[in-house]
């Protein structure tokens, strides 16, 4: 603990966030001391360019961090806010874990078998460029519940990245390792277990980290589009994406920002967990 507190990187982080919050607060409060006349010329100019005359994008229109904090403490005791957290996390994790469970073996078999590559890769490459969100309508029709539809889309978000990384990682293992293993009497299974798997592990970690990021993007968007999986638990089961959507519909700018920051924190926490797991799984990489 003491060591952590004396870590300059930690303090730089704290200062960076503090400065950001202060600038944001000042910016948001600028509406209190800046006279509306000040903006008149700009408004004329924007009006001439076809914008609505009474609207000007400036930071004064954004709620201040203090206001956001107020709104946050209000929802903090609200069970539906935490329900949203839980739902989004649950969807991200189920989609992500499914992507790992299917993607890693799939990627490895593409890398190891010419036949599997010949059959599986062309289809994979045609489907891959389709963004996960383009799957939303089709999967809502296809899957029996909204929930499975969202889980499927989240799964897609991570799946392609994981497969591509596993495939690339397994293929780039130096041929010398295989030659050395074979010379020393390794069986095929032994080579798989002790050369291919650990050799691919760093790429699996990287692929998962990227995949996790995409999963959060996808889940939030899917929740907004699909109306938040309203079949289970109505408005309470909507997840963080739907939380933002509801706040927008309800006209609470502060609460929108609360939702956004919540997603930021959730994404950060899950990447951090993943990084920690990755370091644990590949101890030889940090050992340089």
């Amino acid at each position: 603990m003491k060591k952590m507190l004396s870590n300059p990187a930690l303090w730089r982080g704290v200062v960076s966030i503090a400065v950001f919050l202060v600038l944001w607060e000042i910016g948001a409060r600028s509406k209190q001391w800046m006279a509306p006349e000040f903006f008149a010329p700009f408004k004329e100019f924007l009006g001439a360019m076809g914008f609505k005359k009474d609207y000007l994008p400036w930071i004064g229109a954004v709620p201040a961090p203090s206001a956001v904090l107020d709104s946050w403490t209000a929802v903090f005791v609200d069970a539906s806010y935490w329900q949203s957290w839980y739902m989004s996390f649950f969807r991200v994790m189920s989609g992500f874990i499914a992507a790992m469970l299917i993607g890693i073996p799939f990627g490895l078999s593409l890398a190891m078998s010419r036949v599997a590559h010949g059959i599986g890769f062309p289809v994979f490459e045609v489907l891959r460029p389709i963004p996960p969100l383009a799957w939303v309508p089709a999967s809502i029709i296809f899957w029996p519940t909204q929930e499975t539809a969202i889980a499927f889309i989240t799964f897609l978000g991570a799946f392609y990245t994981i497969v591509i990384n596993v495939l690339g990682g397994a293929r780039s293992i130096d041929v010398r390792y295989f030659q050395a293993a074979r010379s020393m009497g390794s069986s095929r299974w032994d080579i798989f277990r002790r050369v291919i798997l650990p050799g691919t592990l760093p790429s699996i970690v990287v692929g998962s980290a990227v995949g996790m990021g995409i999963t959060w993007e996808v889940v939030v968007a899917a929740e907004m589009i699909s109306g938040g999986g309203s079949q289970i638990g109505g408005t309470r089961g909507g997840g963080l994406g739907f939380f933002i959507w509801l706040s927008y519909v309800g006209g609470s700018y502060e609460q929108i920002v609360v939702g956004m920051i919540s997603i930021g924190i959730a994404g950060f926490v899950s990447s951090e967990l993943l990084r920690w797991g990755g370091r644990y799984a590949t101890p030889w990489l940090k050992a340089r």
Partner: protein
Amino acid sequence: MAESKITPKVIPGELAVQGVSKSYGAIHFRKEVVHDCSFTIERAKLTVMVGPSGCGKSTLIRLLAGFEQPSAGTVTLDGAPITGPDRDRLVLFQETALFPWMTTWDNILYGPRARGQLTKEALEFGEFLLVKVGLQDFRDKYPGQLSGGMQRRAELARAMINNPKVMILDEPFRGLDAMTKELMWEYYSRLYEENRRTNFFVTTDIDEAVFLADRVLVMSNIPTQVRAVIDVDLPRPRKLSDLVESDRANDIKKQALSILHAEAMRSFSRGSKAAADFVEAYLKRASRA
């Protein structure tokens, strides 16, 4: 000595290369790398192959190891044709091939573990080799944490635990700094003098060849063939100072250099830019010797 109890008995092997050619590429782009090449790697001797860079030494090693098959001719170990890689012929590659994800100790034990022979004897022998290569303090370190010289020694131990009939080393000390390299020469020749296995060592460095070898094979340019076989009858154990002071060592060096020089001139006359650089480099060296 305790050593003889731990070190298992192995009968060293003899490798024979007879009329071997090796080409790469499809018909019109065919490139012959080895042409009608014959030599033997004698039992319980340290044979060093010197040849210009890119002449096909690593290609020959891949044939000896069994990773590839010759286009023509035969490669045999004690009379039996080589059909694939096997632990009786282990190779130390030009670049380190230690598994980065295993500690020194797990790397050394790779062979016995792969064959399901992780016996008490194997562990004892591993322990003995670890000390022998001076890495007992680096037992649980990963290859990325070892220096270049240490990596090479760990790799030697990893190969020796399998008791190969022939040890094959492809420019193992290339890329080490001059000091480490000389230490590795001394270290490696002590190791060889102690166990007298069949060793085949490939290099581009004449000093290295003369210091280590019982026999030196001097190779031609690509497509490669043996140009000369020189017996290095310097007494063992050898000292680094012999390399400059001993007349015999200098004679051998000059002999080998003049062949390599002639090789370079031959391809130079065929108008190769690479050969021109090569001639220049060797002329400089010869004038210094």
